[in-house]
């Protein structure tokens, strides 16, 4: 019994996989990171400059108010309050993301990008949403195994190395996606709003839907109820179907619908884009049966 659990655990987390499997998630996550960095640029002075709403003084007070130890919110930006420093940080972040997207510099560039990103998320403080922790986690997983550089693809087409770090990175990405969707749908069901089929109305009424408005939904209770219930069902179905090899393709398709729910039915478009990028890691699992496994060893190793 114990040995079976250990073998299952080992298979799940440490199965060697082709490092090429990280290519698609890396491209998606790093291109998303370019967009994420760029999204801060237009308002950098108004929000984070010395005269901005969340300048260093106010942000420090927010952190003190929450009784957070200042070292836990580490960031070099605390010492450089100027607009130039903040804008430069964003531009360098964009450049690092693009370089990491190409696969240049491997783990070293990915690790620098990871630290660069954490430093910025600490600086923006109360403006953080669900997208920032997920982006940081994804970059950490890609630091474990970033996959091949784009110019190495043709060269390694016939034989790409199978490493346990690639398997671990894929497992962490897919597990993290699964946990976030599960946490999201369970949190939704903590409110009667979702059980009663009203949630979509409230999103629209509060201006928190990217495509729905009260004008579209008004007087159409069945549509509101139906959309809300479909949102919940799709999430549960995606979680179930994507977990099994035989139904994974369908699960990935429903995972895309989940992204539409988060990004368009609600207003979390950045979060939805990043979830979609992470979802691409499941495609690697679809191709598993085609992978050569070099050698074998008994379960009781």
């Amino acid at each position, binding site marked *: 019994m114990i040995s079976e659990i250990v073998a299952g655990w080992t298979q799940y987390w440490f199965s060697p996989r082709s490092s090429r499997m990280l290519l698609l998630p890396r491209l998606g996550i790093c291109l998303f990171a370019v967009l994420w960095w760029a999204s801060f640029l237009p308002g950098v002075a108004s929000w984070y400059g010395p005269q901005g709403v969340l300048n260093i003084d106010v942000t420090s007070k927010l952190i003190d108010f929450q009784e957070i130890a200042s070292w836990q919110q580490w960031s070099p930006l605390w010492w450089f309050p100027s607009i130039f420093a903040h804008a430069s940080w964003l531009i360098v972040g964009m450049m690092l993301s693009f370089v990491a997207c190409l696969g240049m510099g491997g783990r070293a560039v990915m690790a620098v990008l990871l630290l660069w990103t954490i430093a910025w998320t600490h600086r923006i403080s109360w403006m953080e949403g669900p997208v920032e922790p997920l982006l940081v986690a994804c970059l950490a997983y890609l630091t474990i195994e970033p996959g091949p550089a784009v110019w190495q693809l043709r060269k390694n087409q016939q034989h790409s190395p199978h490493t346990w770090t690639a398997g671990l990175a894929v497992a962490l990405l897919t597990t993290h996606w699964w946990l976030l969707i599960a946490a999201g749908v369970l949190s939704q069901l903590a409110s009667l709003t979702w059980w009663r089929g009203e949630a979509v109305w409230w999103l629209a009424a509060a201006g928190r839907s990217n495509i729905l408005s*009260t004008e579209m939904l008004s007087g159409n209770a069945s549509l509101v109820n139906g959309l809300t219930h479909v949102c919940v069902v799709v999430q549960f179905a995606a979680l179930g179907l994507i977990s099994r090899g035989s139904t994974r393709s369908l699960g990935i398709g429903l995972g895309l619908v989940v992204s539409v729910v988060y990004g368009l039915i609600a207003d979390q478009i950045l979060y939805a884009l990043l979830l979609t990028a992470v979802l691409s890691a499941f495609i690697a699992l679809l191709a598993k049966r085609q992978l050569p496994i070099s050698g*074998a060893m008994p379960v009781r190793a």
Partner: protein
Amino acid sequence: MVSEGRDSHELVTDSLPANLPTKQVRSIVSVLIVIHLAALVITLAANLAPSYLQGRLTDALAPYLRTTSQFYEAFPIELTHAESIDFPLLVEFHETGEPPSQWRRADLPGVLASANGSIDVRGSRWPNLSRLIRLLAEDQPESEILADLLARFVVSEELTSHQPLDGARFIAPHVFSFDDDLLAAAGQGSLVQGEWKPEIIYQARIVRGAEGRILLVPEQESMRTAKPMPQGVAVP
């Protein structure tokens, strides 16, 4: 959780590949995986309304979770619960010399001037901040942080518009419920926003001090006291 290409019970009886890490490496990495995922599950579970135990656990895990930006704290992973914190606040200013009822809405980057349903990748950022301001205003309406934040909006607005202000406030616009819509459909009400007054969450009068310093004087309760602008920011 996410099984391989075959059913999970088949996996454990299958052979494992030889190019695995050593048993020692597997043990160390396994411990790290368990710690990381356990911390993630705990912070996700404690996101909205942590229990006493969850609060203790997240406090204990804070050095790891916060330094790595994995601390979930009232993040809207549930999308909406139709509670007040799910409805973004708006910021309004009162220009000097204007009638008392004449308030102008802030048009800062990323702050939706109204619930217009347009697609903006930055659109969810202000609601994140607004959510915490609302929580703070409900739990600690006397908090100086509210005055600090509103003062920063005032400074930013005056720098942009060059219009002197004498008042500012956070307001919560009325959000029509699903029941309101059902009543309107039955001819027993309407969904006209102008017929409803917004809820004032925090309102303050702006007083000019020496050397361009501004003071925010909260107007809602008499017990609130004047709050000086941090660092004495000079306003042109």
